[in-house]
């Protein structure tokens, strides 16, 4: 390895560039024995990941057909009217709050919040025990979002009334 701690000696000419610390501050270079070659170690794992993903997609596609309802008809509004599942949480909020809140402010705040997260959470530790607050906040938000998504996706029927999915199924993929 190269000199891990290069020093500039006064009044000497610079003859070469040596790798220093990254611009972002004091980062340890990993010890030689803590590293592995990407080829083949990581490549083989990525190849296996790719195969697993492809097999999953092929199996689902072989056994389940993508939905195709009747042709679009602007004069015949279905009831319930459902957004795609990844917007189901927002649609559920739409039933609870003013559309400005549910349709604009909440999604806007989520995106901005995610963008700002690394600049808000300045705790440098990645030790789970030292970041309880961040982990709890994130987990609560995530569970809430999953719950809202599931409710909007399959617990809502005609006129957005509550239904039990095992009695009436209204989830659309």
């Amino acid at each position, binding site marked *: 390895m190269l000199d891990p701690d290069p020093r500039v000696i006064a009044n000497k000419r610079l003859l070469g560039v040596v790798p220093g610390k990254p611009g972002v501050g004091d980062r340890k270079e990993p010890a030689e024995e803590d590293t592995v*070659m990407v080829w*083949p170690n990581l490549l083989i794992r990525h190849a296996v990941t790719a195969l697993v993903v492809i097999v999953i997609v092929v199996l689902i596609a072989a056994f389940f057909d993508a939905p195709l309802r009747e042709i679009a*008809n602007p004069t015949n509004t279905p009831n319930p009217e459902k957004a795609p*599942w990844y917007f189901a949480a927002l649609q559920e909020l739409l039933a609870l709050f003013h559309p400005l809140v549910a349709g604009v402010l909440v999604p806007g705040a989520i995106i901005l919040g995610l*963008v700002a997260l690394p600049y808000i959470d300045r705790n440098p530790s990645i*030790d789970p025990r030292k970041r309880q607050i961040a982990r709890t906040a994130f987990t609560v938000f995530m569970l809430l979002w999953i719950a809202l998504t599931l409710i909007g996706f399959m617990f809502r029927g005609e006129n957005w009334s509550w239904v039990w999915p095992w009695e009436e199924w209204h989830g659309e993929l």
Partner: protein
Amino acid sequence: MKTSERIRKSTIGRSFFRNPDRVTERDRAAGHWSNFLLHLYPVKVRKVEITFKYTAFLGVASVVLFGILTVTGIFLMFFYVPSPANAYGDVQTIQNQVAFGQFLRNSHRWAAHLMVLAVAAHLARVFYRGAYKPPKEFNWVIGVVLLVLTLLLSFTGYLLPWDQLAYWAVTVGTAMAAYVPLVGDQVQELLLGGPTVGAPTLLRFYVLHVAVLPVALVAVLTIHIWRWRKDSMLTMDSDQGDTDA
């Protein structure tokens, strides 16, 4: 190893592979610099990076799903015309008459849903492992852009079959745009190309879905992976090394 060696040494093999197989670490490192795709990878990574619990390979799974979507999507494009008069019938033709049409449409649809899930799970994994912390803050921001692009790709694709499901899901989704303060109506008008979902909407969503958004995603993804590659040798935590949630 033996058989592959023999194939490489045959007349055809030698015309195909100009270089001998790379077996030593030095050879392989050199391989990274001479191969375009391997260029996206660092030569070495920290040991944790190859463990399942570190990334669950969700970022890679997202890339693979995007690849599946590109291949199956190009196939669908050969048979699909984005106009209200054709779209629905074209999808029926794909399902009933095109060889492997139903299977490839299914793959495209399910891979799209899975990609949303995989990207969301990747976000959560990155969060719990604290991989958004300095100096990786900006790669997280780039990731959020990728999340938005993924959702938009999924949503614009949803309209294309032009069935009742598509039509009304997009009606609901775009209705929210109208509530953006001050410019809401203009935003909605811009998305729909008219007061309601119609022929201009289908064309706009199609162009966004097959050209604008995928190109944007690839561009942003390239930066995302490049930054990952640059940082993949950094030790993150001063007191712990890499532990896991």
